[in-house]
Structure formats: C-alpha cells, structure tokens
C-alpha cells in the first residue's frame, strides 16, 4: 500500500497513520517470535517489539511502503543492538511462547512409515541438540525452522547476507541430526 505524501494536509496524516497500522499489525506476532529468539526472554521480547514499533513510526517517512516485514526486521535488529540487550538465543525461557509457524518445509504431505518412526524424537533430546549448537548456528535454525522466517527475512533480522544464513542453517541442521542420531534410538535408523 503506497504511503501518502508527507506534505499533504491533516487528512493525509491520518491516512499515513492508518497505512502504518495496516502494515505493522499483521507483523506483530512474527516480530514477537523473532524478538523472543533474539532476546531469549518474553519480557525483553515485548519491550523490544514496543520500541521497534515506536522507532518504525518515527522512521515512517523513509519507508516506501514495500516489504514491511523486511523493513520492520531491520529496525528490530538495530533496536536490539541499540538497547544493548543480551543476545542469548540459547536461553529462550519459554519455548511454548513461540507459536503459530508456517508449515514445516513448505507443503503438507503424507508421512511415510519410516518417517513416522523418525518422528519419535523426544523434546528433551531435541532441546539438548539445539542447545549444543554455537549461538550463530542456533539463532539461524530458530529463526528459520521455529519462527518460520524465509532465508531473506532471517538475513534481515541478523544483518548478514542470505548466503551466510544458508550455510549456517545447513551446518546447524547437520549437527542437530548428528546429535539426534547419536542420542535418539529411532532417529536415522530405518524400521
């Protein structure tokens, strides 16, 4: 939705505020999940998103109305750095707070018998595997596979190139699979 010109009367001001709300409102759950991954605490995540929304509104004149999620993720990342919050994704306090993802790996599909056996992954094994990762790898894995960001959105949230997201994601998944293979009886073994 294009934003009205800055030099228009009061009605345009209201329209701009309304356009801002239209852009930001649907992104609040995503921003909250990403903030939770970056800060590791629901309270800090809420503070971070509040501050992000305020800063985004102040920066509205520099927003062209395209790709609001990418724009907001960039502001969230900069805000997080400016707030000097701890960035310890390994200390997510409440995994249950991270919900409403897009479907895993895209399309829904039928699950084979072999995969049903592989699905027998205990939550504690998975947590241990993810927590054993280095911060850089863990954060990318959480942003893409739990928060369901695209590669490009994760790159915006972290301020790194897409290629870096892809390589870190690949290594993170390989390491988690290796960990699960070593610690979960059914994972990696055909029935």
């Amino acid at each position: 939705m294009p934003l009205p010109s800055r030099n228009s009367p009061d009605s345009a001001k209201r329209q701009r505020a309304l356009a801002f709300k239209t852009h930001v409102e649907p992104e609040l759950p995503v921003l909250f999940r990403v903030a939770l991954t970056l800060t590791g605490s629901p309270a800090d995540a809420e503070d971070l998103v509040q501050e992000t929304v305020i800063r985004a509104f102040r920066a509205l004149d520099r927003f062209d109305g395209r790709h609001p999620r990418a724009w907001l993720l960039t502001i969230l990342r900069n805000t997080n750095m400016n707030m000097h919050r701890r960035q310890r994704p390994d200390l997510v306090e409440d995994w249950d707070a991270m919900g409403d993802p897009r479907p895993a790996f895209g399309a829904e599909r039928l699950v084979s018998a072999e995969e049903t056996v592989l699905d027998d992954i205990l939550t504690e094994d998975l947590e241990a595997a993810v927590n054993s990762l280095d911060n850089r790898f863990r954060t990318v894995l959480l942003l893409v596979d739990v928060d369901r960001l695209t590669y490009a959105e994760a790159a915006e949230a972290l301020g790194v190139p897409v290629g870096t997201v892809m390589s870190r994601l690949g290594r993170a998944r390989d390491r988690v699979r290796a960990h699960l293979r070593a610690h979960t009886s059914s994972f990696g073994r055909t029935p």
Partner: protein
Amino acid sequence: MITSLRRMVTCHWSARRIGRYLDNDPTAPLAPAEVKRLESHLAVCEKCSGVTAEHRALSRALSRWSQQRLPDQAALARLHATLDRITAQGGQ
C-alpha cells in the same frame, strides 16, 4: 568402480541441496534441472533418501515445538494497544 564413484559424487552433490529442496525458499530455489537430478537420485539412493527423511523429521519436530501453545495473547494485546496509541497520536 566408475558407477560407485559416480554415485558417491552425486550423493555429495545431493547432500548440499536437500535442505534447499525441502525448504523451497523463494530466496534460493533450486533450478528445475537440479530438482530433476536430485529427485532421480533420491529415488534410487537409500542413504540420501534416509537423510531426506531425517531432515523432514527434524523439521516437523521443530515445528511441533513452536505449535505447543498459542503466542502469549496478553503480550500481543499490549503490543496492539501500543500500535493503536501511536497511530492515534500520530494521525492527529
């Protein structure tokens, strides 16, 4: 000998693309020719199809992790209220 070496090279090539194939991310889609080659290999290679099954199982497990409960509705409500306040003040 040559056949097994060729299979090994294809396994290595496939291993580097399975994640992207399953993600189907708009930023980095595989080329149609790559998809065709990968799917042909997965149809005949037990090792690589096993790796693919592991990837899918891991993805579902991580997805379940985040689906266990709805997001904190009270926090989301406060964020919506903040947004309402900012836009109401900014629109005046």
